[in-house]
């Protein structure tokens, strides 16, 4: 198990290098100028040149990349051009807020998705199966930013039950586990949960359906096991694949919620990324993309190791 883990860990290094090159190159290719974020539009050419030099933006791109990577290896992610604050503080603060949102969405999505998936798989080709399938396709297909706006109109504007924006009455720094704060989490988490509910339900349905039709299930029934005991075996067999899907979904929830965080003004990594894109804030953009990409890599590593722990066949492969 340890050697498997080490093998997977070593594979992370070239992936991390590739991620750093791609995320640096992508933001350099985009048109626009980071100085726009920090200087009045009518600053003179001389003042722009001075500022460009102050931020090292006058150096050739490969040199800028090497400086950036060199600083990264020393644990320094630089400073945001737009805000002047350290990128690490900005990114990890925002990632923390996104994790909170992603975790809340996962808590809603995964149990519901698994339950609906099993239900549909167990009662395959029945009206219930078709209803769950329709529901999960709707969940995957509905534009979640649109759903977010609709939920805001209903529950915030018309009914006044839940807040429409922000991470608590005093901002995310004052977060507490009470209703005054958690009510801010409800609408974005529900909106964010809709897609993974659909994906997890469809995956589990397919897995459960396939496993239930296998010979060993018939053998288990023949041995006299109860329906509940048989389902436990089915669940154990489905767990490895379902886990990998849920791990990826957690990664998407963390990094893929730009629109949701914008609609709900949630101060997470997606919101930060969107602002960094509009402001061409290169250090912040590179730092955010890198952290999110590495989170994905980390999630994949954890899922792979967990899969191997659950299903020894994975390790052998």
């Amino acid at each position: 198990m340890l050697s498997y883990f080490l093998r997977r860990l070593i594979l992370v290094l070239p992936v991390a290098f590739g991620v750093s090159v791609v995320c640096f190159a992508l933001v350099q290719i985009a048109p626009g100028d980071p100085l726009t974020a920090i200087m009045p539009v009518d600053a003179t050419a001389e003042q722009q040149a001075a500022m460009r030099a102050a931020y090292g933006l006058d150096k050739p791109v490969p040199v800028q990349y090497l400086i950036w990577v060199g600083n990264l290896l020393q644990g320094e992610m630089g400073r945001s051009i737009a805000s002047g604050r350290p990128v690490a503080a900005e990114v990890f603060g925002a990632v923390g807020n996104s994790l909170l949102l992603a975790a809340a969405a996962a808590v809603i999505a995964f149990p519901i998705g698994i339950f609906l998936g099993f239900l549909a798989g167990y009662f395959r080709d029945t009206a219930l199966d078709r209803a769950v399938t329709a529901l999960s396709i709707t969940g995957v297909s509905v534009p979640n930013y649109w759903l977010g706006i609709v939920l805001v109109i209903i529950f915030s504007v018309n009914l006044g039950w839940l807040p429409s924006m922000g991470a608590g009455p005093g901002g995310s720094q004052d977060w507490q586990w009470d209703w005054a704060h958690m009510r801010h989490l409800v609408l974005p988490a529900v909106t964010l949960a809709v897609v993974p509910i659909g994906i997890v339900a469809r995956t589990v349905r397919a897995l459960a359906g396939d496993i239930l039709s296998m010979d060993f299930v018939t053998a288990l029934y023949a041995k006299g096991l109860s329906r509940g005991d048989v389902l436990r075996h089915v669940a154990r067999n489905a767990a490895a694949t379902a886990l990998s899907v849920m791990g990826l979904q957690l990664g998407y929830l963390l990094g893929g919620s730009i629109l949701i965080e914008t609609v709900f003004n949630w101060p997470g990594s997606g919101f930060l990324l969107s602002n960094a894109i509009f402001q061409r804030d290169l250090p912040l953009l590179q730092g955010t993309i890198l952290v999110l990409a590495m989170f994905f890599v980390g999630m994949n590593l954890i899922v792979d190791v967990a899969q191997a722990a659950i299903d020894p066949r994975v390790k052998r492969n």
Partner: protein
Amino acid sequence: MLDLRKGIAALALSVAVLAGPAAMAQGTLRIGMTAADIPLTTGQPDQGGEGLRFIGYTVYDALINWDLTQGDGPSGLVPGLATAWEADEADRTRWTFTLREGVTFHDGSPFNAENVVWNLDKLLDESAEQYDPRQSAQGKSRVPAIASYRAVDDLTVEIITHEPDATLPYQLAWVMMSSKANWEALGKDWEQVAAKPSGTGPWMMESFVPRERAELVPFADYWDETRIPKLDRLVLIPLPESNARSAALMSGQVDWIEAPAPDTIPAMQGNGFAITQNALPHNWTWHLSRVEGSPWNDIRVRKAANLAIDREAMGALLGGLMIPAKGFVPPGSQWFGEPDFDVTYDLEAAQALMTEAGFGPDNRLKVKALISPSGSGQMLPLPMNEYIQQSLAQAWIDVEFMVVEWNQMINLWRAGAADPSVEGSQSINFTYFIQDPFTGFIRHLDCDLVAPNGTNWGHYCDEDMQGLFEEIKTTFDPAEQDAVLRRTHEKFVDDALFLMVTHDVAPRAMSPKVQGFVQPQNWYLNFSSITMAE
């Protein structure tokens, strides 16, 4: 008995008066800004007009402030931390500023001439210990006239300009004064100051969460008693997405939002929210290329285009929240003057001018226009430009658009009309802040500011116009200077130097609880008069 009652009443009144500001403090006002972050808090804010509106003129003062107390007429300059200023009659480059006595910063330190010099060094002297590149990036380009400065005594500052420049008072209205003592107390670290700034303004920043909120409270010792805030607290919340802003207002999470989307306004009004607006020194134009070969070099074409747009009808696109352009500055501006050319809708006259210029239905003029799908202050650029495209087509002008993202648009604006990057575009739809003589007139058409070295995008250069700009800079009496500015504007309009379309009205939506707000004809606001009803 009657006397006793009178005595009790007088006593009660005295107690109320003595209680003063504390008794008047009324409620919390929460504002949803369009900015994505709290503007830079250390003194010289970033994020353009919104930065100065919410952090600049609240927490800080300039030597010379804008009058933000009335909305009936144009907003002019008023004494701020300087009570008087004048240019030496013998040497017009030498200015003397008399500072206000008894002013203190929020940290309790006194404001004096040393602070003024220290603040100017903060922006202009790279060798100074307190030099801050971030604040300098915002402030240095605003005070191009300043050559040197010194403290004459505790309450007198002398500023020398490179050449006689009567627009210096307007330039100084950009420079906010932060506290030297506070910077020193916080380890001479601007990052620390950002979390705990200290100015002389009517509001003190109490707390600050980057990208989420800033909370301001009244400064009870503010030097101008009429501007001591009546509210208990002012909360600033960045809400860059317009639907999120509207939802936050309608669900009661904020009391005021900037720039509501036009299509949400009927719903807001239907739910009892107030929409405020007033003329704003801002215009929405096409800046025309005057490089060799540009069709806009022909005054008949320029006038024809200006006559081909039905601006009143265009108002429907913006929910009526616009002022149809009659010139380069809004019609109520102190600098509008009496131009001869009437900027109006007259298609027949437009077609006659085009015929005179050699064009017609079978010989249409083709032009290329640079536009962006969105951008700061650009209003609704796509539908508005499509409307103009259709309007100009009626005057036999066919418009081809070059659409670029806003950030790239700024680069192309800086590059100028002759740069290959604009790919032969003959106009740029770039909205302008036009609040002072330099930003309003000079920077767009000065021969010495031709792009890319300056902001004259179209490469226009005219001897008479240059003479007027020189006269603006050398007319030191404010009333006479206004007269020169009126003549300058008349030339802007009579020569149809821009395609003049609309002016913004700075719409904001607010809860009916917000009371006492006066929207000045200015980019900045006074929040001190506001109270919140129960």
